[in-house]
């Protein structure tokens, strides 16, 4: 696997918020690995019996990661006779939950995000 990196030119970048293992990368990078778990329990009536504030209590957080099985070997080459990427203006309100905004060339990028939420109100129906 060999890729020829192109030159990236960005005139203006506006990012309002970068949170929960988000990355704004300006320039080339060799490798990136991010992980974010979250939980966010909101109950109308608290429940103290079950052990519900630990990641280990939920199967979501220890599900095995599925991987692609290599089926056919691929010889990949990329070349760029005119290696310029020109971007005028990038505006992003939020970069969050193990995500990345990158301006430049980069190697293997791994990211994992496992949110949960559990919003539970008592019997009233919220319209």
């Amino acid at each position, binding site marked *: *696997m060999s*890729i*020829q*990196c*192109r030159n*990236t030119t*960005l005139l203006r970048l506006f990012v309002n918020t970068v949170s929960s293992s*988000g990355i704004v990368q300006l320039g080339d990078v060799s490798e990136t690995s*991010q992980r*974010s778990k979250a939980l966010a329990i*909101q109950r*109308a009536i608290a429940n103290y019996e079950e052990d519900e504030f630990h990641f280990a209590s*939920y199967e*979501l957080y220890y599900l095995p990661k599925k991987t692609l099985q290599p089926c056919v*070997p*691929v*010889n990949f*080459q*990329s*070349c*760029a*006779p*005119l*290696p*310029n*990427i*020109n*971007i005028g*203006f*990038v*505006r*992003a*309100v*939020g*970069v*969050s*939950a*193990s*995500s*990345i*905004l*990158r*301006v*430049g*060339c*980069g*190697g*293997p*990028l*791994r*990211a*994992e*995000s*496992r*949110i*949960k*939420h559990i*919003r539970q109100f*008592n019997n*009233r129906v919220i319209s």
Partner: protein
Amino acid sequence: MTTPINLNVTNGPVSVGSICILGVSSSSSLLIGDTESLTLYSYFDTPPESVIVGNLAPLPLLEEEESEEQSPT
């Protein structure tokens, strides 16, 4: 043994005026440039309709307000 596939990519120049994005979230990525490989995982679990997006959670109405609404005097 399967014969390998030769994949030759020729990239041209790219020019973009402006990119406006509300959010890059949950293991997603906005890449301006070349990338070798990406492995992104995102799990969510709670059903979408129970998610409240906004700064204030919509709290349920109290009984007296509900009764006033049903029988206005």
